[in-house]
């Protein structure tokens, strides 16, 4: 058996567990829009099965169908047989990469990604020169492209790259008086290069809770995007780099402000190295002290509520897939919102339904991603909320795009930004004693 097929053979038993009951059809956001059996988990699993049994080859068509998935894990959560279809589909992508190589655009991007220094430079340049090609939109922290950009839909609303990345705005460590703990902040790329406002909010909130913060300068992208695209080898390089970097930080805890980033440290890194016990053991050590920010504030820190000032906002909440079904953190962000005076919370219909961003899915399949998102926007609009809180930069960007495209005026922010604002308001209303 050739190598790419070997990759699939490992999961033969897991594949066989799918009884083709079709329960996954109910929840798959991609299937809902495309209505083709090849778009639902059951279909994709059948394609992998066909390759294994020799009835089909790993073709461009196979590749394209494996790509039709936002990795939202809804199918896995629903499946009565416990089939983790989202992971099996990733495996299908890996096999496709092995057999056919990455598509040339992705190859170029990933090559750039692999070199941390170059990557950093490229994204900084984007921040510096971005304004030339991006047009600012009033209201939101958002821009649209002035010139056509490869791989981007022209109408798409993005966030501007930061002119100074987050990690360059602060010293690597931020000592405070009488720290309760030392926290290493894994910023992730979105927060470092785009949504520095989320990063600042994380820092302020942690400070307000007497945590000493370190943002290891050499940290790299979590690797999830390349892993999702099927390039496991590169994902491992990223993972190893991050493991080494965060070991050196000697922190009590590692915190990320994104479900996917937290999931990478908590779940993916240990799994990635199941053929390398030494590295796996190190990954596991870090995994147990990694938390998503809301989870950390609520479960570990028991964040201070006495210093919170009022914010007048009607807030609804979108649960990113990797928060709701990946690391299963949904009550904590709500607990944070509930603690903020003046916030009235309105739950939307299906808060944990995928927003359609799906990592690079929305880059390649913008039309479908838009349609998935339109349902989310409709759910948001059906509440009386003026603010959407979420826990992921990618979701935030995609939702803002959706709001603008649908002519809505609500804003979308990270939960922690609202909390930071409340601490800020607390300072104004109750001056330090």
């Amino acid at each position, binding site marked *: 058996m050739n190598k790419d097929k070997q990759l699939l053979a490992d999961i033969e038993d897991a594949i066989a567990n799918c*009884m083709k009951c079709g329960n996954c*059809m*109910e929840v798959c956001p991609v299937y809902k829009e495309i209505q083709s*059996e090849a778009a639902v988990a059951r279909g994709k699993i059948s394609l992998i099965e066909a390759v294994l049994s020799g009835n089909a080859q790993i073709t461009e068509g196979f590749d394209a169908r494996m790509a039709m998935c936002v990795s939202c894990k809804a199918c896995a959560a629903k499946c009565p047989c416990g089939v983790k279809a989202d992971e099996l589909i990733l495996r299908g992508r890996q096999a496709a990469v092995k057999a056919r190589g990455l598509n040339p655009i992705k190859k170029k991007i990933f090559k750039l990604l692999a070199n941390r220094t170059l990557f950093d430079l490229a994204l900084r340049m984007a921040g510096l020169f971005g304004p030339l090609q991006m047009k600012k939109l009033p209201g939101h922290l958002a821009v649209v492209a002035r010139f056509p950009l490869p791989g981007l839909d022209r109408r798409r609303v993005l966030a501007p790259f930061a002119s100074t990345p987050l990690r360059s705005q602060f010293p690597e460590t931020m000592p405070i008086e009488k720290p309760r703990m030392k926290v290493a902040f894994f910023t992730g790329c979105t927060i470092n290069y785009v949504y520095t406002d989320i990063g600042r909010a994380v820092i302020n909130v942690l400070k307000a809770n007497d945590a000493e913060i370190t943002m290891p300068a050499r940290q790299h992208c979590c690797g999830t995007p390349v892993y999702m695209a099927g390039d496991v080898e590169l994902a491992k390089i990223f993972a190893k780099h991050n493991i080494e970097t965060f070991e050196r930080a000697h922190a009590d805890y590692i915190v990320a402000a994104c479900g996917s980033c937290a999931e990478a440290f908590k779940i993916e890194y240990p799994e990635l190295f199941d053929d390398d016990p030494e590295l796996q053991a190190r990954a596991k050590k870090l995994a147990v002290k990694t938390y998503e920010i809301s989870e950390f504030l609520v479960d570990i820190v028991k964040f201070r509520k006495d210093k919170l000032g009022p914010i007048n906002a009607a807030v609804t909440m979108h649960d990113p897939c990797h928060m709701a079904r990946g690391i299963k953190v949904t009550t904590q962000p709500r607990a944070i919102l509930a603690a903020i005076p003046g916030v009235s919370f309105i739950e939307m219909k299906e808060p944990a339904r995928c927003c359609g961003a799906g990592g690079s899915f929305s880059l390649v399949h913008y039309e479908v991603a838009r349609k998935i998102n339109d349902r989310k926007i409709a759910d948001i609009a059906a509440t009386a909320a003026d603010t959407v809180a979420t826990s992921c930069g990618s979701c935030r960007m995609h939702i803002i795009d959706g709001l603008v495209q649908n002519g809505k005026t609500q804003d979308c922010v990270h939960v922690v930004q609202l909390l930071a604002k409340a601490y800020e308001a607390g300072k104004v209303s109750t001056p330090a004693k």
Partner: protein
Amino acid sequence: MESRLINDLKKIVGEQNILTSKEDLLCYAYDATPGFSHMPEAVVSPADTDEVSRVLILANNEKIPVYPRGSGTNLSAGTVPTKGGIVLLMTRFNKIIEVDDANLVAIAEPGVIVAELNKAVEEFGLIYPPDPGTVTTATLGGTVSENAGGLRGLKYGVSKHYVMGLEVVLADGSILKTGGKNVKDVAGYDLTKLFTGAEGTLGVITRIIVKLVPAPEAKKSMMAIFSNLDNAGKAIAAIIASKVIPATLEILDNATIRTVEDYAKVGLPIEAEAVLLIEVDGIPEVVEKEAAKVTEVLKANHADKIQVAQDAAERDKIWAARRAALPALAKLRPTTFTEDATVPRSKVPDMIRAVNQAAAKYNVTIGTFGHAGDGNLHPTIVCDLRDKAEMERVYQAMDEIFTTAIRLGGTLSGEHGIGLGKLKYMEDQFGAVGIRTMRTIKKALDPNCILNPGKLVGEC
């Protein structure tokens, strides 16, 4: 399929509504039935009745097999295109045309998901009772064609009790209308019933008129545990004899209880021989009275423990056990056959015992659960399709289960239909004359045998 024909089909439904690439065709080679798989040559999604008619005229002239398909969740290989040809995907027929609450009737297209129909009639205080386990994914057309039932079958019956009229495209492309909104309608042969449960072998349903019923105002659920299977059987008969017809009366056998407990930890005693799950519904006062009566009957028949749900949360807990039955069994092994043998309800304990004997004799794992109140049991066989020797034993056990059901005066299917899965037992149940009559009907309506050929009545 010749490219000339593909081009003709494209002209009818439009380029984007036909799939011909191998990767797509592979995804329509199966349904929820294990052990059957065959690729079609094209998947065609028509938008309206006229397009269906034109596709069928073409297929009939060229003698191309056509397999109507809803969501492909049936358990009888009813949608597997065993002879290639066209899979006719009906999911674009997704409009609810009318909810007529004055006449308690709804008109909908066959691609509407059953749960969506229920959502639409809910606001009128109505329900459409057939509720298969796949209610959130199965289409109305698929359920009508399979004559699907569900948990509420005992009191509310199966699909055929609710279908009042149909629009059907016949094999030659002509369009037939049957029935209507009339509650009383005895004019002519009952063509509505003929096409309901025909499993796509007689025509393609393009529009459905269904009867709705008032949603029950109140519900009460309870669970009874029996250390003796016969006592559970007697309790089932005695509940009905006491003139209470519960909406739902379900049984889990010992194998299922053990598996469910292991999987879902819902607090079932693993040594019990049977658990009965019962729900009565209706007007609050009547529900109270009936629940009391059921409890009394259960006690009289030596239930070891009776638990009556006091609120929604407790009700949920009771039904969690039933909901976990299939998933828990399915997780044991890769392949899951959910069979559908049905017997008169007094024979439920005999049937369960026969299933257990078959399991022991052929060394296969079978859990039995199902709709005890209407005798509709789901012996669920878990195995591994890749293990040839095991499958040999599985098919022998199945033979024994179905011949026993028929010997006990039962039927091959309470709600899943025949398709290919149970074809070989048909003559046992209907005799030569029965089969001949069915084939005569099939031949009369579909002389070229293009519609779902080989299913339900076999080759003709």
